[in-house]
């Protein structure tokens, strides 16, 4: 799926000019209305007031076949009317032509407690939770446009895991949030909406969700050699020799990337690894690192966006 937005405007979203290829993107902004409209035009809920939005060359607001490939979570959700949530989800799955069972879908998202509740009795947060569960279960979708996906009842780990699965199979996942903390958790290339304008400059989008707080403790037979090898790594790993002989602290962008790199380099240099353990830093350090990174990304995006406006 390739998403092209050309001067697309709707309400507070004054202009969106981006070209998105499959992968993970997070749009961070303090303008909630602009984010809401961005997801709405991308998913074909509404056509842009001006400009155009194309998904693989067709406008989602005009082509039902294109909308079939989109899984969305809007700021304000409405479920299909039914007596219970289970009935509503079943009807939605039938409309989608999916083989999943509604009860299994809700159970997977840890929403079983909502199964027998009347749809009309759900609050906005519960309604969005069910809508998100439906969106994340869309296994044939090639575009995921999700507004504040970490503010529902569904555990963040489940949301992030499902997003990982979908992006791994080649989908385009765009999440929109006003929270820097959520943005760093959601990860992916960051985009920014400033003054209602969404732009991206090629090559200026570092990965979010890759904070420097991921620390791994390694015990090896040759800590110094491994340290040298890791410092030359393209992932920007930093190392610190431990007090005990053979111990090494490795700071990396994300746990999976760091561990993978440690094992790969140890094999290449024939270094024995005795133990690898993820080290959890103090909560304060983690929060500070996460907020600082997200803020830095946001400020950098402002400079890029304002530069683009001028």
């Amino acid at each position, binding site marked *: 799926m390739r998403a092209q937005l050309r001067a697309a405007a709707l309400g507070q979203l004054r202009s969106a000019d981006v070209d998105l290829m499959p992968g993970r993107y997070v749009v961070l902004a303090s303008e909630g209305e602009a984010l809401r409209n961005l997801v709405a035009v991308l*998913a*074909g*809920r*509404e*056509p842009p007031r001006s400009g155009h939005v194309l998904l693989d060359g067709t406008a989602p*607001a*005009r*082509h*039902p*076949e*294109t*909308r*079939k*490939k*989109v899984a*969305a979570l809007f700021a304000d959700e*409405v*479920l*299909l*009317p*039914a007596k219970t949530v289970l009935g509503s989800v079943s*009807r*939605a799955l039938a*409309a*989608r*032509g999916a083989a999943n069972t509604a009860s299994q879908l809700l159970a997977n998202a840890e929403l079983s407690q909502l199964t027998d509740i009347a749809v009309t009795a759900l609050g906005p947060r519960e309604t969005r939770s069910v809508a998100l569960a439906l969106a994340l279960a869309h296994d044939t979708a090639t575009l995921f446009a999700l507004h504040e996906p970490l503010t529902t009842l569904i555990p963040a780990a489940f949301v992030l895991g499902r997003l990982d699965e979908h992006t791994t199979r080649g989908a385009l996942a765009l999440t929109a949030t006003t929270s820097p903390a959520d943005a760093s958790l959601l990860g992916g290339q960051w985009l920014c909406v400033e003054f209602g304008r969404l732009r991206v400059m090629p090559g200026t989008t570092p990965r979010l969700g890759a904070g420097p707080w991921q620390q791994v403790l390694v015990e090896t037979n040759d800590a110094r050699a491994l340290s040298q090898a890791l410092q030359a790594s393209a992932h920007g790993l930093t190392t610190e020799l431990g007090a005990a002989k053979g111990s090494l602290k490795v700071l990396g962008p994300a746990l999976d990337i760091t561990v993978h790199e440690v094992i790969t380099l140890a094999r290449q240099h024939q270094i024995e690894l005795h133990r690898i353990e993820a080290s959890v830093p103090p909560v304060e350090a983690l929060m500070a690192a996460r907020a600082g990174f997200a803020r830095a990304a946001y400020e950098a995006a402002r400079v890029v966006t304002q530069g683009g406006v001028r």
Partner: protein
Amino acid sequence: MNVKAGIDLARERLRQRTIPIGLGLAFTFALGVALLERAQGAEGASDRALSGGAFGIALPLVAYFLVGRACAGSSLREALLPLTRHGLDRRPLTLGFALPPALLAMGFGGVTSLLVVLITRGFSDPRLLADATTSLWIGLVSGLAYVVAFTGASAVGRRGQGRAWLLAADFPLGAGSSFLAFPWPKGHVRSLLGGSSVMELSQLGALMALVGTSFAFLAWGTLRNQR
């Protein structure tokens, strides 16, 4: 598939306690007006009750209420969103979506017209059967026309304000007989009931205009909504 999904969507939304309550209130109002007209005098009471209370006020309000409920108070596009987001086409969905409220409004129009004629004429009136039959089909057609027009008008405005604008235009503009009354159902319904005609159209012309303009509203709303 899409038409049936549209029918199911509207039917589910109309399964609310407020629907029978609303219909009951409108029904009571129409019959109350019929009783008052009868008390004023039997001559012309039937026409006054039908063109005034039943089809002039109650039926448009019932149709507006039913379409508003089916749309859950939003626009037609938003009302269909729970299905269109899964790749269903808005056009056949709209056709199916209009059907349940249309059937309810037709039922309301038919039953109300029969009872109003019965109350205002009484069992002994020799023209009861003929009047009842004529009023019945006018009630059915009027119910259908109003719902179809309101459904199409719901495509205007983020919350479907087009419905309210149509209702607001229908009452004053439809009350006339000039070309200004032509787009609105009220004048044509009055003409079918034997009142003054719009632009001197015949009864057949009024019927064609009523159905034509209503479906034109629906077609316009459907096209506006895109696929």
